[in-house]
């Protein structure tokens, strides 16, 4: 059968979302960003929000997210995306507003912006890619780097006496009165990808229903920064990251009542 014949018979079981354009991505092979970009595109499209979405990109590996997903984008300074999102949503309350940030951006330099935007119950969603390392700058220690993990700025492994503890900012977010939905997901298997997509959809819907702020953490790999093959990085994530960063919903105020 030719490609056209298959399409004609309605047998398409999978296709790239149209919001995800054909620009070649700069992400390393094996990186989780590509999968999350696809899920974000699918959810916006399925919600019919293409013409009503304003997204904020961070400084970090996802700095160029605006090149790949065809919605309106604002490129924030490092850590400041939640501040941009807060103002944008208040000024355009009927728009879908979300930020897309990494661990260094969100949990280190932008901790104040993150916590206060979430606790003001801004009707936004923060998508948080946690790969426990600074990818863009070449693999330095992040606030979420696990103890013992080696990076360019903790080459002998993260040590409490030198570097303190990894930060569970998602647990902090769940403790805030302003958050509606706080969840931790991953995208390393088909089942996990499906769960992450449902979580994104739920967060976006809550934000449009005015239920407060939402945080979707995606525990991710950085095989380049971790210096592993993509396959080994996934396995390492399962064995080490999930032990410290437990997957699942931490809070779902929207489902209560």
């Amino acid at each position: 059968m030719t490609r056209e014949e298959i399409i004609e018979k309605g047998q398409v079981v999978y296709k790239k979302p149209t919001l995800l354009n054909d620009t070649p991505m700069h992400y390393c092979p094996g990186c989780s960003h590509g999968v999350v970009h696809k899920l974000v595109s699918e959810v916006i499209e399925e919600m019919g929000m293409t013409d009503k979405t304003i997204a904020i990109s961070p400084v970090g590996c996802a700095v160029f997210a605006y090149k790949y997903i065809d919605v309106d984008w604002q490129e924030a300074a490092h850590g400041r995306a939640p501040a941009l999102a807060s103002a944008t949503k208040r000024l355009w309350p009927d728009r879908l507003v979300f930020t897309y940030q990494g661990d260094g951006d969100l949990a280190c330099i932008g901790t104040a912006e993150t916590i206060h935007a979430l606790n003001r119950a801004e009707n936004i969603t923060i998508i948080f890619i946690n790969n426990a390392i600074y990818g863009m700058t070449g693999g330095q220690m992040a606030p979420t780097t696990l103890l013992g993990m080696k990076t360019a700025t903790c080459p002998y492994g993260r040590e409490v006496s030198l570097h303190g503890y990894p930060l569970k900012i998602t647990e902090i977010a769940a403790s805030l009165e302003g958050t509606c939905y706080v969840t931790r997901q991953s995208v390393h298997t088909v089942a996990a990808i499906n769960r992450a997509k449902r979580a994104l959809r739920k967060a976006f819907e809550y934000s449009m229903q005015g239920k407060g702020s939402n945080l979707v953490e995606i525990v991710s790999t950085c095989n380049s920064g971790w210096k592993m093959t993509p396959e080994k990085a996934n396995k390492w994530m399962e064995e080490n990251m999930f032990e410290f960063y437990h997957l699942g919903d931490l809070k779902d105020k929207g489902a209560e009542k």
Partner: protein
Amino acid sequence: MADQEITLMKGNEAIAHAAIRCGCDGYFGYPITPQSEVLETLAAEKPWETTGMVVLQAESEVSSINMVYGGACTGKKVMTSSSSPGVSLMQEGISYMAGAELPALIVNVMRGGPGLGTIQPSQSDYFQACKGGGHGDYHLIVLAPASVQEMADFVDLAFTLAFRYRNPAMILADGAIGQMMEKVVLPPFKPRRTEEEIIKECPWATTGRVGMRKPNIITSLELRSEEMEIINNRIQDKYRKIEESEVRYEEFMLEDAEYAIVAFGSAARIAKKSIEVARAQGIKVGLLRPITLWPFPVKEVCKLAGQVKGILSLEINAGQMVEDIRLAVEGRIPVRHFGRLGGIIPDPDEVVDALKRLF
């Protein structure tokens, strides 16, 4: 006419009332002396119930300027206000807005520095306001009000210029202008623009892909040097255009002047009194008051150098604007500086003494 009503209020309060009246869409700020009345007045006025203006107290000046950045991306008329230490914190966001070419208003009600300094008035942020302030090659359009009336009038003017050139504008006031009470006629009410008007006026804005147009992307990032140079050159061309078209200044008793004082804001008010005192003693002195500090009235100061024997730069700082005056004068006549520091405002008599001593 109700709109022509004369009221008595502080400069900071005038900023708040003018913002509501000129159709401002959003104010984002953080308390700091001596400008907290801006946020306080807005909170008391509750414009979200009348014009629909958003008012939000941020967690820091870093956040408030980034809220302004986000709001400006969407084509809305947004502003913040702060005082010197807070404006230092805002420099990152201001640089991003200049780089992304966004219209917005930043009000700096200056206090003395450096560091935590004093809460008393000062003009020591002239360099920061006029020479960039943050990283990169950029300028703000800087307006210097010398009265509560000008605090009220410059809000709309600053927004007009900011949107005309897609560039952040700053009102550079000081603690004296912010805190003093004066008579003021507030500007007439102008409705906030509708979403349709914003989308028409700002086709570049991130409003969502209305009508399924192509995505709008606001960024100051470009990694390719060749492209980044083109962007920088375009921004510099815009600055040259602003320098040609938007210089504003006031002249006072310059017709027969043998000496000139150049002063802005509070210092210009003191200068006027000093001129009265000096003229009573037979010293023919006049005033050139730059209203736009950037663009600086270079041609006017240059022309002045052909008329007077010397120029005194009167500033409530250690001598900042004096550098721009010297550049404009190109060494043809003596240019001296007089100022007081630490939050002390010079009195007219010591300015006259300085005139006599320095020339």
